[in-house]
């Protein structure tokens, strides 16, 4: 249980670090009051659609704290519609000429530019480069797959914003339902702030100043995602942690009791061994080694089982808890498993100490007599 809660915590943090790095922006501006909606969407991948006027982007760009901006538009593909090959998928229209979140990925990729009829797909959609998908009756080709983050961004498709507007315009004819998106509408503005040496301010100050200057927006800071994920997890982790400590204490007591009973049952055997010349140290080590071997094998089986269950159900756990999940690195995982095994061995060793000491100190004749 300790491995489970610690692994969920680590995997969630790891995923958020990757996701926030992918986000690339210092701040994200959305229509007033919709910041928490978008935060939850980033974590779970559930598509949300809201719009504001494009003039907001110009207002933000004109602010002295801002270095550059890039607009995005959020669309959700139709459910159970033949004009969409993937249902309920999050489509994000982005501006290739000003974007600074997707382009850094492209710069590391052989494909340096994205064409109007191309899209970039998140790793969680099961698509491959070269696949053709249809949204609102428009066919688009997958130009590349983004690296996984474990966050909602893995279930997202990135499409050039002009293609999104064209798709909306043509949807009245080509799609089962029209896409209600006008060419002057955007959903969010990604903001890169000026560094301090150029007159910039820290993120939280800049967020406050921007919200004060432009009342129609709310600002999301990347740290907000961390806080939200931790809030989603807090209750569950607290329960798991408390349960694991309680189980640990009970297990330690039970091990001590079982070994005390076992040592009591084996009094005659121990007495005979002592009579044949076994030292107190030998008896002590024998009982302790048995405890450690049993604990070790139990720890190995338990760790294999818990890792298998977590590996198999990781996506279900992430969606149910509404937190991102991305496996931590091999070193962190190995360290966690090693510490879990060591704690199991220590617990068994400490619990079996008293029965081991008592058994080793018994008089051989008394032990044989009592065992009959």
């Amino acid at each position, binding site marked *: 249980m300790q491995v489970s809660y610690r692994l969920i915590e680590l995997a969630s943090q790891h995923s958020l670090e990757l996701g926030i790095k992918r986000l690339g922006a210092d701040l994200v501006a959305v229509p007033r009051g919709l910041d928490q909606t978008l935060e939850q969407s980033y974590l779970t991948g559930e598509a949300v659609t809201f719009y504001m006027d494009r003039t907001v982007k110009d207002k933000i760009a004109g602010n002295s704290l801002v270095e550059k901006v890039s607009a995005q538009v959020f669309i959700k593909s139709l459910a159970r519609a033949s004009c969409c090959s993937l249902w309920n998928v999050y489509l994000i229209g982005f501006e290739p000429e000003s974007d600074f979140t997707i382009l850094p990925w492209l710069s590391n990729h052989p494909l340096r530019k994205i064409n109007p009829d191309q899209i970039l797909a998140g790793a969680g959609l*099961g698509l491959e480069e070269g696949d053709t998908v249809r949204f609102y009756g428009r066919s688009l080709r997958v130009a590349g797959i983004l690296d996984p983050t474990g966050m909602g961004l893995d279930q997202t498709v990135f499409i050039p914003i002009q293609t999104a507007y064209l798709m909306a315009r043509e949807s009245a004819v080509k799609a089962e339902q029209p896409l209600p998106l006008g060419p002057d509408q955007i959903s969010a503005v990604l903001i890169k702030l000026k560094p301090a040496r150029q007159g910039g301010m820290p993120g939280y100050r800049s967020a406050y100043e921007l919200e004060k200057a432009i009342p129609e927006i709310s600002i999301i800071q990347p740290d907000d995602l961390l806080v939200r994920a931790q809030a989603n997890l807090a209750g569950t982790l607290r329960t798991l942690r408390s349960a694991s400590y309680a189980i640990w204490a009970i297990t330690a007591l039970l091990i001590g009791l079982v070994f005390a009973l076992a040592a009591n049952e084996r009094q005659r055997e121990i007495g005979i061994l002592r009579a044949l010349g076994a030292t107190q140290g030998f008896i002590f080590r024998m009982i302790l080694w048995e405890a450690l071997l049993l604990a070790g094998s139990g720890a190995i089986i338990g760790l294999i089982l818990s890792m298998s269950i977590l590996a198999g*159900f990781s996506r*279900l756990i992430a*969606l149910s808890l509404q937190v991102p999940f991305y496996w931590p690195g091999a070193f962190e995982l190995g360290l966690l498993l090693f510490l879990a095994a060591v704690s199991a061995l220590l617990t068994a060793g400490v619990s079996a100490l008293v029965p081991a000491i008592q058994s080793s100190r018994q008089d051989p004749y008394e032990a044989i007599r009592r065992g009959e």
Partner: protein
Amino acid sequence: MRIRIFGMLILVWGLILILIPWVLFPVCGAGRFASSPGHPEKPHPCWPTAKAETVLGILSIGIGLIPLLKPTRKSILGASLSSIIISVLVVLFPGFITGLCKAPTMACRIGTLPALVGLAIIMLLTGLAGLAQYDS
């Protein structure tokens, strides 16, 4: 007595196999993922898998009954071999034969498939233990 226990185990695994795709870890559009009344669900690609697993579950229950009703060495041999074959089919159906929905975040992939794989491993181990019992 031990032969009856194996029979009971195979029967219980069969019952769980029926419950997994419809109740415990339902496939898309089934169980807790079903759409509201008045909005009929379009068939999902994972439904044939759910039906196939249900049939395998019923077979498993029938096979588990045999050692329960007639606890002989032959019955445990037959039941164990059948359990091993069924456990392989439990994984082959969603993986290769009937398949599942394409998107990795669909309910059938994140819940049903891992549960089926886990149960298949347990059924395989039960079958192997039954064979070992037969040998001894």
